[in-house]
Structure formats: C-alpha cells, structure tokens
C-alpha cells in the first residue's frame, strides 16, 4: 500500500519530512527482507537464476578489471619500492592491498554499476508496468520472488566474485613481477600468503558480504519504489548505483576502523 504515503501531511518542512519518511521506508524495507528471508516458501529456482546472472555473467568484466588492476598497481608501486631497494616486497605489498581493500572495493563498485543498475531498472520497470501489482493480486508474494531472491544472490555471489578478483589481480601482478624481477610463481605466491593474515581474509569476506547485501537491497529498494513511468525507471537505476557506491565507501571506512581496532587488541 505504497499509496498511503501520498496521503501523509508534512509535519515539518516538506524536504525534512521526505528525508525521514524515506529513511523509515528504507528501514521497513530492510526489516521486511529479514522477516521474509527465513519464511517458506523459498524461491530456490529464482535464487539460482539470479546467482547465475549476477555471478557468472559478471565474470568477463570482473576478470578484465581485476587483471588490469593487478598489473597497474604493481607497475605503479615498483618505482617507489625500488627507490628504497625493496622491490622484492612487491608480492607482499600487492597481496595486502588486493586482499584487504582493492579486491572487495573494485568488485563491489563494478557490481554496483552492473548488477545494481540492472536490478533497479528491472524491478522499476516491473513496478511501473503493474507487473508487481499483477503478482500481488494473484495471491503470490512479489517481495519474496523479486527482492529476497536478488538480495540473497548478491549477498552470496559478491564474496565469491571478490575471491575471484583477488586471484585474477594477483595473477596480473605476478605477470608483471615475473617479467621485471624474474620471480617464479612459487616464490611469488609464497610471499603473497606469508603477507596476509587470517584476519585479512575474514575481514575481506565480511566486507564482501556487506557490499553484496548493500548492492542488492539498494537496487531492489529503488526499483520497488520507482514511479512516474519510464523516467522513474531510469531514475531508479541511476539512484541504485549512486546510493550503493556511496554506502560501499562508508562501509569500507567503518569496517577498516573495526578491523584496525581488532588488530590493535
């Protein structure tokens, strides 16, 4: 009954009222997700389809980006380390940077652009063409079918994509290190795994889960609440990307503070 909100009279100024009602709507949307995610029936087929779309279909873009990031970051770091005669630390430096920050961040930003916008546009167009209403009036649960399945799929697939990006970026880095410093693959990866800790891996997975959830829920929320025809669909897709990217950076900062605090204990 989204239309009920149209009847609300502004309590303060229109803008402040809109901000707080928007916040309350978003909170209710997230709360509804957690209420419905554990309740049967489960839309397994749709979840698997979405996992395929979000995971497998993102692989080419993620592969290319991860590989380039690995090479570029290695090449950019080399001169600085060489100045101190520490070029041999390149594998350690790259592994820490990729696993702790760049892998999750690059993957999440690409997914926010590719997956977030597609979820926002798809659900938005279903909303404005009354397809969601059609599901509702046929006594089915569109929230479970559209929102729960997509949010679960992004939450599951983004961590896997992050691991894949880490691997591809490290391979790119290895090619650069191998070509310039003549380091073997075994030596490179021994240094890589010596540099990263269990906490690095756990925090990376935790962040990826958080990023995946954010991309899915923001895309679905913006699409589910879109209005005003095709213009609204475009806005929903755009807002899904901008809002997801903004939240990803904030989450990155918060998780970094948390991990640093744990590391200092």
């Amino acid at each position, binding site marked *: *009954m989204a*239309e*009920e909100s*149209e*009847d609300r009279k502004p309590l303060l100024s229109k803008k402040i009222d809109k901000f707080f009602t928007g916040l309350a709507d978003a909170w209710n949307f997230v709360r509804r997700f957690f209420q419905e995610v554990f309740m049967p*029936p489960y839309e397994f087929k749709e979840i698997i389809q979405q996992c395929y779309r979000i995971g497998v279909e993102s692989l080419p873009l993620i592969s290319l980006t991860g590989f380039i990031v690995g090479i570029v970051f290695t090449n950019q770091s080399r001169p600085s380390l060489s100045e101190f005669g520490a070029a041999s630390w390149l594998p350690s430096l790259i592994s820490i940077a990729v696993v702790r920050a760049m892998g999750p961040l690059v993957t999440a930003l690409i997914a926010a652009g590719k997956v977030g916008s597609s979820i926002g546009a*798809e659900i938005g*167009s*279903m909303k404005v*063409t*009354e*397809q969601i*209403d*059609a*599901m*509702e*009036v*046929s*006594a*089915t*649960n569109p929230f479970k079918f559209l929102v729960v399945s997509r949010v679960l799929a992004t939450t599951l697939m983004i961590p896997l994509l992050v691991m894949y990006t880490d691997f591809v970026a490290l391979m790119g880095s290895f090619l650069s290190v191998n070509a310039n410093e003549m380091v073997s693959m075994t030596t490179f990866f021994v240094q890589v795994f010596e540099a990263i800790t269990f906490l690095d891996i756990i925090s990376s997975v935790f962040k990826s889960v958080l990023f995946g959830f954010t991309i899915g829920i923001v895309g679905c929320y913006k699409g589910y609440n879109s209005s005003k025809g095709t213009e609204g669909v475009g806005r929903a897709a755009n807002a899904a990307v901008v809002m997801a990217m903004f939240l990803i950076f904030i989450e990155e900062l918060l998780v970094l503070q948390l991990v640093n605090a744990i590391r200092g204990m």
Partner: protein
Amino acid sequence: MEEREKVVEIKNLKKSFGDLHVLKGVDLDLFRQENLVVLGKSGSGKSVLIKIMVGLLRQDSGSLKVFGKEVASLKKKELNELRLKIGFSFQNSALYDSMTVRENMEFPLVRNEKNLTRKDINTRIEELLDSVGLPQTINQMPSELSGGQKKRIGIARTLILNPEIMLYDEPTAGLDPITCGEINNLILEVRERYKTSSIVITHDLACAKQIGDRMAVLLDGQFDAVGTFEEVFPNAEDERIKSFYDYNFINS
C-alpha cells in the same frame, strides 16, 4: 435484479490522493454472473475503485465488501484467499516480460496450488490458451506478442486460478476495432464458460453496449447513472452523460 446474490457491495466509498478527491462517496453493487460496465472519463477513479476491491489501494472511508467480507479489514492471509477468487486483467496486460507465456501462466498456479502434477499444470495451461485462441504462443515471450494477444494471455492468466469475479481494466484500450470486438466476445465467453461476475472498466461505449448487462457512469467522483444501456444513455438528461454518448456514437 434485486433478488440476485450480491458479490460486491460498495457503500459511501471515499478515496483521495492528497488534495485530489477521486471517489466522493460511491455506492455500487455487483450481482452474481452479471457484467457491470463502469464508464467515466480518464482520471475519474474507475481503476482506483477496482484496485481498492483487490486490496492494492485502501479507501479513506466507506465500505467495500466482496463476498460479504470487508476488504480493508482483512489480514494478509485472508486477503490472499479473497484474491484467489478475483481475477484482475490489467490495462497493459502486465505480463511478466522476463517469462514465456507458459511461465506467466504457471507463476500464480504453482504458487497457489501446491499439489498439482506437471501433467495437471500443462493440461490447465493448454486448456486456457485454447479457450483464448492462442495455443501456439505457449513458448513465446510477451515481447513477441501483439497488443490483442497480450490482452488475451493476460485474461487467460487471471482465469488459471478459477476466479469467481473478473475485473477488467480498460480491456480494449489501444486496440483496433476488430481486435476490440474479439476481446469483447472473449469477455462474454468467459462469463458463459466460467460463470464469472465481472466489472469492466472502459470509456468505450461500443464495448460497453456489447458486453454490459448494466452500466454505471462515474462522474465527478460519484455514480451519476446506473442501469441498462437503454436506461442510461440514449435519452440521458445529464449533459455530461449526453456528451459522453454523443462523443462516442455520433462523433465516431
């Protein structure tokens, strides 16, 4: 007519969107197995009325009962049980565009009737596609269908749950006269074959005349005239109804 069973009872129903008062105290009854046509200008609140009927919107005040149950006071589960008895055919068909025709038809069926075998599901889908004259479209995507075909598939999808009431929102909007006639015939066939009661929202008087047992004209948020086509239109005294009639029949 008064002795027949009422399946929908609307009393003093009001609905506003902000300062826009769409329904200003509407009274209307739908009787079993009748085709009631609701006419009115665009934006007069016709679609709002049937959306309140299926719980997509909530009225501000007044009463709307379907099969004796006040829709606004139903809990989610009760509302869904009621929705199974109501088929809603949307203005733009609202077919799920990422699914084939078969998947569109299956979607409500498999989620509401858990004990069906694959054979039962296929039989039901094929039977309904046959009844709307489009068995060959079963594996097509909605984007491959014409406007008239989409309307037919949309109607078939709503019929798959065996509804007792059909709500048609502008079933002939945007269609050529021949396809309009086919859709009108289909609406009549649906009533005969599935024994449904229907509310048809339209502003097409030719359609209304062909399919409606009674007409209800919604003007300025209230029903100004309710009765058979002959009672309401040819000798209407209200200028607004008269101009509605003149525009549809004389101008066209």
